């Protein structure tokens, strides 16, 4: 299906939003790599849900927000976004730093989140191991740690099949800068978040790739333990990008979880 693209102003900050599908609204928050557009898994999920996939401030072609200091700012921004769009209660799905943002939102306004899906979220300090420093490695080297097997990614050609245009390269740089702005210190976690997670009321699905080379799987166990109503689902032979690496299985699991609402 073809989503429509809208520019939505949240206060003075305009963000680009992909909107598509029918049914209960699902807000999708992307990771540090930026909004990769309308993805294969979204086609399947959009048959039962209206997907709102905004591009974070400072990312892509959305307005800058140099005043932001951390992911909690982004969380407040998206709660405001819900007000602006008129979504009183949504399913919320976030990946990586988008998952961290979703978790923060759910601690701030548990009442507006119906069901929560956290896909390899950052946000918690791992009890063992470290979250890989994504700003320290050359992108090519980082990519080898990001996915389990690039050759098996169905959308590989469309997403990674050619060198970026100058405009795409500029957007990639902008994405990295905003990600650094939001996550630099403490790196990729909020030491206060675990104290607030018990406030979350939404049934939560935590998903992780067994071979995630960016955020250790143990963080998934920590989320499951700290959230009052969470299950952890681990995908085998999958890295840090389940929505891209295993789009069909990912979509099926998400649909199944949301159907129980």
């Amino acid at each position, binding site marked *: 299906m073809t989503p429509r693209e809208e520019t939505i102003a949240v206060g003075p900050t305009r963000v680009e939003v992909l909107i598509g599908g029918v049914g209960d609204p699902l807000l999708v928050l992307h990771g540090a790599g930026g909004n990769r557009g309308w993805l294969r898994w979204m086609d399947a999920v959009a048959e039962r849900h209206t997907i709102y996939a905004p591009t974070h401030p400072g990312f892509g072609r959305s307005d800058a927000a140099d005043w932001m200091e951390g992911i909690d700012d982004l969380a407040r921004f998206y709660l405001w976004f819900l007000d602006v769009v008129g979504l009183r209660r949504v399913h919320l799905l976030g990946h990586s730093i988008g998952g961290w943002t979703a978790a923060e939102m759910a601690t701030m306004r548990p009442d507006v989140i119906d069901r929560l899906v956290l896909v390899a979220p950052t946000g918690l300090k791992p009890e063992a191991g470290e979250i890989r420093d994504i*700003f*320290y*490695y*050359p992108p090519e080297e980082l990519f080898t740690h990001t996915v389990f097997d690039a050759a098996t990614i169905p959308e590989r050609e469309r997403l990674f099949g050619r060198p970026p245009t100058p405009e795409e390269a500029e957007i990639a*740089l902008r994405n*990295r*800068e905003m990600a*650094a*702005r939001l996550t*630099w*210190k403490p*790196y990729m976690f909020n030491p206060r978040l675990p104290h607030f997670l018990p406030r979350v009321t939404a049934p939560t699905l935590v998903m992780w790739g067994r071979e995630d080379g960016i955020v250790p799987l143990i963080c998934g166990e920590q989320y499951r333990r700290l959230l009052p109503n969470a299950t952890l689902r681990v995908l085998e032979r999958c890295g840090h990008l389940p929505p891209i690496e295993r789009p069909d299985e990912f979509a099926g699991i998400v649909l199944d979880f949301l159907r129980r609402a």
Partner: protein
Amino acid sequence: MKLYYFSEMPHHEYPDAEGDKYPSLRLAFPNTFFSPEIAQRNYQRYLDEYDAADQAGFDGLMINEHHSTPSCVNVSANMTAGILARTTRNAKLLILGNILPIQDNPVQMAEQVAMADLISGGRVLSGFVRGVGVESWWANSNPVHNRERFEECHDLIIKCWTTPGPFRWEGRHYHFRHVNPWCLPLQKPHPPIWVPGTASPETAVWAGRMGYTYVPFLVSFEVARELFDFYRQGAAEAGRTVTEDKLGFLICAVTADTKARALEAGRNFVWRMGPTLRGPIEYFSPVGMRSRAASQFALKARSVSLSKMTYEELVDNYYIVAGTPDEVADRFARVRRELGIGHLLLEAQESRMDHATTMRSIELMGKSVIPAMARL
């Protein structure tokens, strides 16, 4: 033209093959190769050489600071300035410089520089730098904020030196409720400010606007002239006239009794052009540290990486000057003619250049090169 002596205080006493095993000598090369016993001797030696440079008549002693690297184990420019403030008599102490963006307490920085200025009898030239990316990693300071923190840290230091306390500072990156440093510089309104540059047009424009002395490091004449043009642009905006006293340049230099010996000694500088600058771009210029304009300028300024040049090319292009005293005096004069500068900073010890060679170079500079430059 004034000459300045500079030693990076290297710690190159390890097998090179060990360093080659890591992505970079900076950040990644383990400090198990750091030898406290060797460093203890080296610090004494390097400080002795600074003292000798003062006695030889150098106009100034340049001091810098780096972290997590064998290329420079001077980990505190202000500490070294404090030592040299006591052990030297005449030379200016050019701190070039304090790495402002990674500082969490600009008030303490203002105090430390003031104390060195007081102990030295008002000889401090206070340089401020943004640092290479490695320093941002070392301090875990967000590179996205580097320029903002540089400017705000600078503003607070200047205010400490020029505005009676107590006062309050609530900026974007720095917050102090009771600022009242009981240590103020001897020089009024404050020590002269110096700023180095390698690639950032914004820094050159800013230095020009502020009227600070601006010093490109190890770039071609062509790039230095372009940076000076940016500097002049900033100066013009502020209605300032640019005199040669506001312009400097840094190169590597050594002299010896024969050309052959000088050229042999000069080879030590190749280490700092290549191996010590090797590493991922992410280490040296982490995301957000450079503006788009600076990144583009850097590509042009370093269209041929220093590490790709042969020793002969580095000598031919004035990154390294090595020769008899007469020869180096001629080449320094050429640098002055090319750039119209008032200050020439000499990185004059490096890598495995031994103490005797370093001392002889200092002595020969003092005997004839410094007097010759003073006449220019």
